[in-house]
């Protein structure tokens, strides 16, 4: 045992003794490992972050099962939006003295009072929140406790209402008592960790490149140890221990970065998600795992790298002639992947097996990239003859040892291919999300839903608001087929004005009925008898489809006109009825109707807020929803753009890591061949030739890697689009950015090796003493 500790100490001592190059290797490896550790720690915290947020949102849960002796609290949600951020507004009134309240509130707010989250309080106090105040005029009497605010920047208000709201409002008997299961699904956790490891692949490649620094010297050192009498197992232990130093330093670095970075957690907004600093706590079991695994993996990698070497007193022996790479299994892998993606082996579409096969196919295709590259570089380099001398020098070098740089580029190319595939998929899907400037722009509108009785007043308010071009009121309801339990048809009641404005119907008179073609369901045949039903809403009991009473009947008249609705009509019905045809009695129980206010295409943010404010006076009685109202993106679109930005950033980052790895390799090459290079220069070979040869050495693998990544990425995307029956549109600007980036980085890396080349070929390197 003491012997092993001794070997460990020797290994550590040897890893720090070697002067500048040794420190460079240590630093680079440690930085790479530190980055990996920090990322893994964040991944390990995701479980807790998600749990805590879940707990906080569940604190709001409303239990509506009656409890004896408890006077319920009536709660109604009336959320709004301010500058495209959601504002969660809850109106509440307690029916008794000890009515329940959520744990995060000190008391239930009284009418005219409200409790807000810290972010909302700050917003309302500041100038920026001026246009929000009309909607929340109540006095702020306190702050909502953190336990009720899921994310740091959330805008939440609990506003006091009066008992007039109680009718038709949810009666809550207790808050936040759902028994939640605490741990993140272990399967998800495993997926998350595996995902992090995959993301960190370029970092691992970088660390392995860094560990190659001064490889020749390490071989000599190990041989010297063997000469002096160390056993072959002992010398392997010592070699492995050398890698431990950077592992521990990297571990410490990663933990430090995590601990410090954590303090800034609240400032980070990732796809709209924010976390509290106190949430960022990694799972202790995983922390222990990381602390144990990182050194273990580094030792195992070091030993694995030594697997085919025999360390003898006279030198380190490796296989003399490089084994010619075989092509068949590489192409075979890719072929299997393509087969899986195109045929799914006949599995039933959208079944689980189908899903697994598709994933396997995609994975195989991606794996094919780093597998194919070394063979490709070797073959391409092997075939090339002639060319200028700088080119020839580079090719000969690559012919001799293509594996190293090909592996570096390969690992990164797979990330690039995946990125290109994802970007292409996203772009093709982009049309659906309706990014401005990308797809046909539907008209912007603000919809206000409220009790039908309020419609005329709301319509008047909206019409008068600045920026509103049109306002129509529509009442949507469902007409049930007489005699059937669940066959219903969407019916919308709107006047001719609205029909003209929304449905584009030119010829309309009060009393007309229109049936819509090509809607999501068939319209009822003329003459069908429909009835309006009010279902019993027994609290706490299971919904009974037969428990209803009919509030009215209506028959689809024979004389109808059939029309087709445009996609942007916002009418979700198969039957359009003018008030005259409804026979005076509004269909349904007449409770909910909507005013649709069309807005100008170039609506400003302020105008939007004022429009919202124009119906602020109705408080909990209205529900306001707006869309396509301006160049700002809604939540979905923001997520999409964020994901795309992240992908771009990720690919640039991986390219940079590849560049640094190649730089390290190039510098190592220069160092190893210092003497030969100096002799070449002394005998008259211009430095420019040597410099260009280094450029080709870097550029050829990168070039091949980008080409393969591009082909694989686009190919993969094409196959996936085929599966989804979507049109393939390639993100040419993005591709150009990536290719340009690769070329630029090759040039940059080569430029950065120039000073080292210069110093290596200074004639003073030829001194033998």
């Amino acid at each position, binding site marked *: 045992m003491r012997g092993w500790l*001794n070997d460990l100490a020797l290994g550590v001592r040897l890893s720090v003794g070697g002067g500048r190059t040794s420190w460079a290797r240590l630093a680079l490896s440690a930085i790479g490992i530190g980055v990996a550790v920090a990322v893994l720690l964040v991944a390990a915290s995701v479980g807790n972050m998600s749990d805590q947020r879940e707990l906080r949102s569940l604190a709001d849960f409303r239990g509506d099962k009656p409890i004896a002796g408890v006077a319920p609290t009536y709660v109604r949600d009336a959320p709004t939006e301010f500058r495209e951020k959601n504002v969660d507004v809850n109106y509440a009134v307690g029916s008794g003295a000890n009515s329940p309240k959520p744990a995060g509130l000190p008391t239930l707010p009284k009418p005219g009072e409200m409790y807000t989250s810290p972010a909302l309080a700050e917003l309302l106090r500041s100038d920026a929140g001026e246009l929000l105040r009309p909607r929340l005029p109540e006095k702020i009497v306190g702050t909502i406790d953190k336990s009720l605010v899921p994310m740091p920047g959330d805008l939440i208000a609990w506003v006091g209402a009066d008992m007039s709201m109680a009718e038709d409002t949810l009666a809550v008997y207790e808050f936040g008592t759902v028994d939640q299961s605490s741990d993140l699904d272990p399967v998800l956790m495993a997926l998350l960790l595996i995902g992090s490891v995959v993301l960190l692949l370029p970092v691992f490649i970088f660390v392995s490149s860094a560990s190659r620094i001064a490889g020749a010297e390490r071989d000599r*050192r190990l041989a010297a140890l063997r*000469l002096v009498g160390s*056993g072959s197992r002992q010398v392997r232990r010592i070699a492995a221990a050398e890698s431990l130093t950077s592992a521990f330093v990297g571990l410490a670095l990663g933990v430090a970065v995590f601990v410090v970075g954590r303090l800034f957690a609240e400032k980070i907004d990732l796809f709209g998600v924010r976390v509290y600093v106190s949430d960022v706590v990694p799972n202790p079991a995983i922390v222990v795992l990381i602390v144990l695994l990182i050194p273990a993996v580094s030792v195992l990698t070091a030993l694995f790298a030594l697997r085919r070497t025999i360390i003898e007193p006279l030198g380190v022996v490796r296989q003399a002639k490089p084994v010619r790479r075989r092509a068949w299994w590489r192409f075979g892998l890719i072929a299997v992947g393509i087969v899986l993606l195109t045929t799914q082996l006949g599995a039933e579409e959208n079944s689980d097996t189908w899903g697994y096969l598709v994933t396997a196919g995609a994975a195989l295709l991606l794996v094919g990239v780093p597998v194919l590259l070394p063979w490709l570089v070797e073959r391409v380099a092997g075939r090339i003859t002639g060319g200028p001398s700088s080119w020839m020098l580079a090719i000969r070098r690559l012919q001799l040892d293509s594996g190293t740089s090909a592996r570096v580029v390969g690992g990164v190319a797979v990330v690039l291919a995946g990125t290109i595939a994802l970007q292409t998929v996203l772009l093709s899907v982009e049309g659906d999300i309706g990014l401005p400037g990308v797809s046909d722009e539907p008209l912007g509108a603000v919809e206000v839903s409220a009790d039908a009785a309020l419609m005329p007043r709301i319509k008047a308010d909206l019409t008068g608001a600045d920026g509103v071009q049109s306002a129509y009121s529509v009442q949507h309801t469902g007409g049930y087929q007489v005699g059937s339990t669940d066959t219903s048809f969407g019916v919308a009641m709107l006047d001719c004005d609205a029909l003209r404005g929304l449905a584009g119907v030119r010829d309309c008179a009060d009393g007309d009925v229109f049936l819509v073609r090509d809607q999501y369901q068939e319209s009822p045949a003329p003459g069908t008898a429909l009835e309006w039903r009010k279902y019993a809403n027994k609290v706490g009991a299971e919904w009974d489809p037969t428990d209803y009473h009919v509030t009215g009947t209506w028959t689809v008249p024979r004389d109808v006109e059939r029309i087709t609705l445009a996609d942007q009509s916002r009418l979700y019905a198969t039957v359009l009825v003018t008030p005259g045809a409804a026979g005076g009695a509004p269909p349904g129980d007449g409770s909910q109707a909507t005013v649709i206010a069309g807005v100008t295409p170039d609506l400003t943010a302020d105008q939007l807020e004022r429009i919202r404010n124009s119906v602020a006076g109705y408080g909990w009685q209205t529900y306001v929803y707006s869309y396509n109202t301006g160049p700002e993106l809604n939540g979905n679109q923001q997520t999409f753009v964020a994901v795309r930005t992240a992908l771009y950033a990720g690919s640039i980052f991986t390219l940079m890591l590849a560049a640094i790895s190649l730089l390290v390799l190039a510098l190592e090459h220069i160092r190893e061949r210092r003497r030969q290079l100096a002799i070449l220069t002394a005998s008259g070979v211009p430095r420019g030739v040597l410099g260009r040869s280094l450029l080709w050495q870097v550029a050829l693998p990168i070039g091949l890697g980008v080409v393969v990544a591009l082909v694989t990425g686009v190919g993969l995307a094409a196959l996936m689009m085929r599966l989804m029956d979507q049109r393939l549109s390639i993100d040419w600007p993005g591709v150009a950015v990536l290719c340009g980036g690769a070329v630029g980085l090759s040039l940059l890396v080569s430029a950065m090796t120039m000073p080292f080349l210069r110093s290596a070929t200074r004639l003073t390197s030829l001194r033998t003493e």
Partner: protein
Amino acid sequence: MSQPLLNATGIVKAFGPTKALDGANMSVHAGEVVAVMGPSGSGKSTMLHCLAGIIAPDAGTVTYDGRDLGAMPDQPRSTLRRTEFGFVFQFGQLVPELTCVENVALPMRLGGMRRREAEAKARDWLGRLEVGDVASKRPGEVSGGQGQRVAVARALVTGPKVIFADEPTGALDSLNGEHVMRMLTDAAKETGAAVILVTHEPRVAAYSDREVIVRDGHTRQVEFA
């Protein structure tokens, strides 16, 4: 005549198509200094490596102290190199990352000795060879002659029975070379170690007690009456 300490018979060793040794024999007695001479490329170094058990010959046996080196597994051979053999090569044998005193202490540390104890012994030997002042320097920072003396110290520190020296003064100038040979042979005589000295220079061979010629893979020894 006492039994030889180290005995090699019928050594055959080929590297690829060329035979470096083809039926070479040699024996070394305790405490004697033997020079192995011959033209360059004649297989002298190969003979040395076979004698030390670093290379396994294709045919023939090498026995040390009655033990067959060829039949020994790697671990005991390594232990032998650490405890009973010492090596002084022309260059490149000191570990550049360690200081001179750490280099000299290395064989003992590999054997499990505590650092302090090993380095004390190392300093002692460095002093005896008059290079005590380079103890904390790295091999790259000292002159050729000093470096070779450090190597000699490392070879002697474990009290070996055989020292294998391959052109130990090859990279040194005459004066430094003389100092190193003088110290090596004196210290060896003092500790009773045998020295196997591979060299092509007669003046270096003049430090030996007898010489063995290696030529075309065979060994010759000349005896006068």
